[in-house]
């Protein structure tokens, strides 16, 4: 570990850090002064000075800046330096795990253990935990669906929640007027989500990047506002009540039983989604998505019909949102437009990016982390959104590729092939 010296800052640098951190904390003390310290009551015309807050700011930013600087330095050095001891051990552990997972017996055991955990969860965790987990699973499906559009297709979509809303409303309304049951509503919801996604996709085929982003956001907001204002159809902001929970024909389930039942429906749906997305990724059309994401023009030159590929990605992605929407409506039994705001779209987007775009385990982890962590942080209810924001920024600065980064299927070149390449002088393979 000769290069350790470059990754580990020398003592002298710590002092320099301290000086700069002190400057930073003074800067922040000045910066936050009016908002943190002064609280003006405009009605009574009184002012409260909260000087103690400044101490928190100075202390917090001093420590924070020190840590920040230290990690930023490490990240910068990390490019050429070797890994630290902890990371090395982690990498070694990971290698052992991947080696073990290759052996069928271990893999089967792992899957069985996971299955057991998943099945046992509602019976061990109780209703509250099951409910939270169901929400997280809904976001897993949403994340995986959006991943088709963003992670595979490379289209920045910030209006994904609209299809979720449409799925939920189509179940609620069809049930209200025609008594459609949950099971029939599932495919209908998926169809509605997919078709609307296509319908929105057609006019925006020419748009790219941020223009696409803002237009999808606009469509989502239009959807929400129409749901809110078209009271004769959607009952406006009052929403729709008493949406029936999913049921098995003829059997009446108690509330805890339904909760467990919905949980298992979600588990099945997640498994289905993973299966489909995984198959999609390695299919012809999935590769077209990735090609389109990587290089639009080269992809077109290779004979891929861009318009059709884009629409396919949008349609396939929208479907899952519609499907998840139906389950959402059935689970909460009450929906109103307030559940489908821009922020909801943004959270789904965050699950995808935070987890690791394009990577299925990444998106699952992202959704679980983003939904479960704030849920369990309820003790810090006041601060959790603040922390959430800070975590998003920190994650993007230090690990921009997400928690679990996508690994492409790579073709490894054997020694024999290298030799052949050397003989025929093909520089492309030798490297």
């Amino acid at each position, binding site marked *: 570990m000769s290069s350790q010296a470059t990754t580990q800052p020398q003592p002298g640098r710590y002092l320099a850090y301290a000086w700069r951190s002190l400057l930073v904390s003074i800067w922040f003390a000045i910066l936050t002064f009016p908002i943190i310290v002064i609280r003006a009551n405009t009605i009574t015309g009184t002012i409260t000075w909260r000087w103690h807050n400044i101490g928190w700011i100075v202390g917090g930013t001093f420590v924070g800046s020190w840590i920040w600087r230290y990690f930023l330095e490490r990240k910068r050095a990390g490019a050429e330096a070797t890994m630290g001891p902890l990371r090395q051990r982690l990498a070694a552990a990971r290698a052992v795990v991947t080696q073990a997972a290759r052996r069928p017996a271990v893999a089967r055991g792992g899957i069985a253990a996971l299955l057991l955990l998943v099945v046992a969860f509602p019976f061990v965790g109780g209703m509250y935990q099951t409910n939270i987990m169901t929400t997280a699973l809904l976001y897993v499906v949403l994340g995986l669906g959006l991943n088709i559009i963003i992670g595979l297709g490379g289209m920045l979509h910030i209006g994904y929640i609209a299809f979720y809303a449409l799925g939920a409303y189509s179940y609620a309304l069809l049930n209200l007027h025609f008594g459609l049951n949950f099971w029939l509503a599932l495919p209908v919801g998926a169809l509605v989500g997919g078709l609307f996604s296509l319908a929105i996709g057609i006019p925006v085929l020419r748009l790219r990047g941020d223009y696409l982003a803002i237009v999808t956001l606009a469509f989502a907001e239009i959807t929400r506002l129409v749901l809110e204002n078209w009271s004769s159809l959607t009952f406006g902001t009052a929403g729709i009540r008493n949406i029936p929970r999913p049921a098995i024909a003829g059997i009446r389930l108690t509330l805890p039983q339904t909760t467990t039942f919905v949980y298992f429906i979600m588990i099945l749906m997640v498994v289905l989604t993973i299966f489909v997305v995984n198959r999609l990724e390695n299919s012809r059309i999935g590769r077209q998505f990735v090609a389109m994401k990587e290089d639009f023009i080269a992809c077109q030159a290779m004979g891929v019909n861009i318009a059709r590929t884009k629409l396919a990605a949008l349609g396939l992605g929208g479907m899952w949102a519609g499907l998840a929407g139906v389950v959402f409506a059935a689970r909460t039994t009450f929906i109103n437009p307030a559940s489908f705001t821009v922020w909801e779209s943004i959270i789904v987007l965050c699950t995808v990016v935070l987890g690791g775009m394009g990577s299925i385990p990444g998106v699952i982890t992202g959704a679980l982390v983003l939904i479960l962590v704030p849920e369990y942080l309820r003790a810090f209810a006041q601060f959790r959104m*603040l922390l959430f924001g800070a975590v998003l920024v920190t994650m993007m600065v230090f690990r921009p590729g997400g928690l679990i980064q996508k690994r492409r299927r790579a073709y490894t070149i054997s020694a024999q092939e290298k030799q052949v390449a050397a003989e025929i002088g093909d520089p492309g393979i030798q490297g």
Partner: protein
Amino acid sequence: MNYFLGLFVSGLTRGSIYALLALGYTMVYGIIELINFAHGEIYMIGAFTALILASVLSIAGLDAISILVIASLVAMIYSAAYGFTMEKIAYKPVRNSQRLSALISAIGMSLFLQNYVRLAQTSNFLPFPTLIPRLGFLQQLTFQVTSAQFVIFVTTTVVMILLTLLIKFSRVGKSMRAASQDKTMAMLLGVNVNRVIALTFVIGSATAALGGVLISSFTGQINFYIGFMAGIKAFVAAVLGGIGSIPGAVLGSFVLGWTESFGAGYISSDYEDVFAFAILVLILIFKPSGLLGRPENKKV
């Protein structure tokens, strides 16, 4: 006719406000191609700083005009400092990562700032003092213009002219344009790109704060959430005009302002935001890079 003029003036006011915000969006986008989601939060922080300062000053017993001037100036300086700090923390380290990382970072910043103000101040709506004094000569006009509307429009026009002059003729403006065309080349020619980017954030944030102070004294109330929708609307305006283009941002803002106010006035006020988003979609369908945006021709 008076009804029409009223709507026209209210559209103009809205447009001016959107323009003050959209300028910041478009300048930042022009240089680092980032949708600065937290821009609306800077506007909100500007409004809060002005509110706090105005309360302190009015208790200290200053007259209305000096309160307005001092509160706006300090709010601008503070917001500029926030913008500067934000760029250093959340955007500079991700400048070379993928575009989406920067966007998520901006979203995180936006959440953070909203909740920072919510925790440090309040989550309720606060009444905002009417900082803008009554102007006598407006009473003599045949149609209704409030002094707030007048001041907003005049300020926006002045700011726009100043910004255009700055970008067209000053040395700083020249380096900004150079950096937005090609950062590496600009760097090779001796432009301190980091400083130019920081400066762009500073200017954009200061104009946003000015917008925050003006609109808040017009609407009379603020809370920690006002920045979000205003930010989205301003972004819509910037895209409508062609993001990255300064005249485009201004034109887009006015188009958006009029669409909203005429749509609300003649059709239905429930669907006001729907009109705003619908006009965006319509224009982008026919002109995919906005009204005045340059079409993006990618060379292979």
